[in-house]
């Protein structure tokens, strides 16, 4: 077999939010490099679309509504033993600081922050995460490296996940499990959603022009290749990091 330190052969990876965007991209690329996937998403049809795009055999799709604690528990219950966990389910929220209300705050904190934390805890308690596992959170440039107009709530949740990842990295190191985050720049799969339809896609493309030194916006595959590295044994000595994948955005 060809030399490949990034191979995910023999590893089973749980990915939430796999029915679209970055989650789907990570699932598809991980399958191509040998992983068995357990994918979850809210929308059954789109989840099946992702399943049909996976290469290789033995993948599992678990429809899950993570808006409730019951949904979180049910997903962990159905999940087989895993070697990697990439929670990608998340929501954007564009809201100016002076219009923040408690409902919006609670909704985004639950989905983006509490669910990934509770899933991690439950997976550990139910002994679903094998020794020497890898957990990869999807954080953001926002809140950790940069700030953007209207993203204070979103930033709050992503910075919280980054903080949790460091604490978990320290505690789980004893069992050889590593915990890291990927901090993506703008990936246009979510571009219209992120904008709350305030601006057209053309306007957003125009407004980001010149802000990415590598002269394009992100693709789901860019995040997938970073995830593959962090999930593979190639990153065996890497834990507690925030990995920027941003085309150089944060350099400017």
């Amino acid at each position: 077999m060809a030399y490949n330190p990034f191979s995910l052969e023999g590893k089973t990876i749980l990915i939430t939010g796999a029915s679209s965007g970055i989650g789907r991209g990570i699932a598809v690329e991980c399958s191509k490099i040998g992983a068995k996937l357990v994918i979850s998403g809210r929308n059954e049809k789109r989840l099946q679309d992702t399943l049909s795009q996976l290469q290789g055999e033995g993948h599992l799709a678990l429809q899950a509504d993570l808006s409730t604690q019951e949904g979180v528990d049910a997903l962990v219950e159905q999940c087989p033993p895993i070697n990697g966990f990439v929670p990608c389910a998340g929501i954007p929220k564009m809201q100016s600081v002076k219009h923040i209300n408690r409902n919006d705050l609670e909704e985004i904190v639950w989905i983006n922050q509490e669910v990934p934390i509770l899933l991690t805890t439950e997976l550990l308690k139910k002994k679903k995460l094998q020794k020497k596992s890898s957990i990869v959170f999807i954080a953001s440039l926002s809140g950790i490296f940069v700030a953007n107009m209207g993203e204070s709530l979103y930033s709050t949740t992503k910075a919280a996940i980054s903080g949790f990842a460091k604490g978990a990295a320290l505690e789980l190191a004893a069992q050889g499990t590593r915990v890291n985050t990927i901090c993506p720049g703008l990936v246009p799969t979510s571009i219209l959603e992120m904008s709350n339809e305030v601006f057209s896609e053309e306007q957003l493309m125009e407004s980001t022009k010149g802000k990415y030194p590598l002269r394009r916006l992100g693709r789901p595959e860019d995040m997938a290749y970073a995830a593959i590295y962090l999930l593979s044994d190639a990153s065996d000595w890497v834990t507690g990091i925030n990995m920027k994948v941003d085309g150089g955005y944060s350099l400017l």
Partner: protein
Amino acid sequence: MTLDEFVAKFAEEFDETPAEEFKAETVFKDLDEWGSLTALSIISMVDEEYDKRVTGADFRSVSTIEELYNLVESK
């Protein structure tokens, strides 16, 4: 909500532009302060006052505050 009340609510979302500059016929996109943040604030204001969603397409289809008011009222 009357048109005058809407204009006043609209003006409240701006921090730099004096309130007296806001009239029903004001072309709001020409204001120096108009941008992503003020647009977000207007969306939130309409959501709070009317429980209605204004979109980017709506903003593009109108130019004065009165036109925006009429569009919101008709939703």
